[in-house]
């Protein structure tokens, strides 16, 4: 692998992992709310969470540009805090996180719904507060959903193109992730071979992520799914 290619690979991994790490806490929280709570407007909220799944990625990228760009309301708010998304790998991570979010939430939600709420009640009668129940009972029993959701979101992040290029453009070393790099190579006459190499790396990465996710699920004690 050439130095350039290593750089692209590492950047992609950095972006995908950062996106995953940033989306896990809100993903778990929202999945829990959707799984367990009832409130007015819940259907609307659920639909909103799924938007990145149904909107064209370029549209999502554009919305991110409008909101988080240097001229955007949120972008301007965060800039003095040192958080910048425009034209930076953090923006690519944000795009990746947003695009993968519906997949993450769906998988985790299904997994939480499969946890018998009466087990949570049993824990409460034993003296556990709601928070403690969540962390000691609900979460461990939903591990397989979190692993699956994480994998889907990570894989989506690795393949994210439209939103990324629209939001943070195709800056080598900064936002040129694997898909963008592959695209760039296909745009140059004679770049096919390199594009293919990078595509193979993508496949290898996805397989590795899949294997890891499987291992994680297998490692967790009794899956918690009841007869």
């Amino acid at each position, binding site marked *: 692998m050439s130095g350039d290619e290593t750089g692209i690979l590492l950047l992609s991994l950095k972006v995908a992992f950062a996106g995953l790490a940033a989306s896990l806490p809100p993903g778990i929280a929202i999945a829990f709310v959707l799984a367990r709570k009832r409130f007015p407007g819940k259907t609307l909220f659920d639909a909103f969470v799924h938007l990145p799944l149904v909107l064209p990625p370029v549209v999502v990228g554009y919305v991110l540009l409008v909101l988080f760009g240097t001229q955007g309301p949120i972008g301007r708010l965060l800039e003095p805090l040192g958080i910048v998304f425009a034209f930076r790998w953090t923006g690519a991570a944000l795009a990746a996180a947003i695009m993968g979010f519906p997949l993450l939430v769906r998988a985790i939600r299904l997994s939480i719904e499969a946890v018998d709420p009466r087990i949570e009640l049993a824990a409460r009668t034993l003296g556990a507060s709601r928070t403690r129940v969540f962390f000691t009972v609900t979460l461990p029993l939903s591990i397989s959903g979190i692993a699956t959701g994480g994998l889907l979101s990570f894989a989506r992040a690795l393949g994210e193109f439209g939103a990324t*290029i629209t939001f943070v*453009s195709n800056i080598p070393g900064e936002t040129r992730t694997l898909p963008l790099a592959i695209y760039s190579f296909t745009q140059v*006459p004679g770049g096919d071979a390199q594009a293919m190499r990078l595509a193979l790396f993508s496949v290898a990465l996805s397989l590795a992520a899949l294997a890891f996710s499987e291992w994680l699920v297998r490692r967790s004690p009794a899956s918690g799914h009841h007869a």
Partner: protein
Amino acid sequence: MRHLLAALLCLTLAPAAHAQSALVFAAASLKEALDEVASTFAMGRAGRVDVSYAASSALARQIERGAPADIFISADTDWIDYVEQRGLAAPGTRRNLLANDLVLIAPAASQVRVKLAPGVDLAAALGKGRLAMADPESVPAGKYGRAALTSLGAWKGVEGRVAPSETVRAALALVARGEAPLGVVYRTDALAEKGVRIVDAFPAASHPPIVYPVVLLKRSSSPVARAFEGYLASPDARAIFERHGFRMP
């Protein structure tokens, strides 16, 4: 039964229907002008012209992969050469259709002043921002831009500060939104977008001439396509192009 007949009828008519339309692949920077030319052509004529706009690089690849285009208008010679080398162009149909200029733009509200001459310090003018341009490695507008900046001795200074977009129009949008303080686009693009102002024009000598070659594709069998290709050089069409800021080559 009736529905079956209708369906069969549609099928037999389909090839005939194709003969009544033409598919044009054109560089993104031609959008407004070419749309107008196409609709003027279609008025009072039986036949439709559909235009697909994208980066010339993307279009050439699609043609190579068998896209059913009749006409290809590229924003530089490289990609027409590409198509010709692969034997996809109808021999003898290539000519230079239009010419364009390269300009430096800024958001309409910006007060920045830059003189594009050898030794210009573009990096200073950029400040903390980035230079929006089409991808300098593959998109014609970007390639011209890099050539111009290199000849002015400014490329090294801004190379690491570029925000490469898929098309020149995407770069235009970034500047219009104020996301990038400066951008490199065609004059015709700058004129089409009210949200930007032209800071200065790149000297013609700093880059290879920007020409738009057009070619009829070998696979085309559409009489409408032939007619349209001829129409592109007509006085009516020329007037429209010039109104949008293009020059004749």
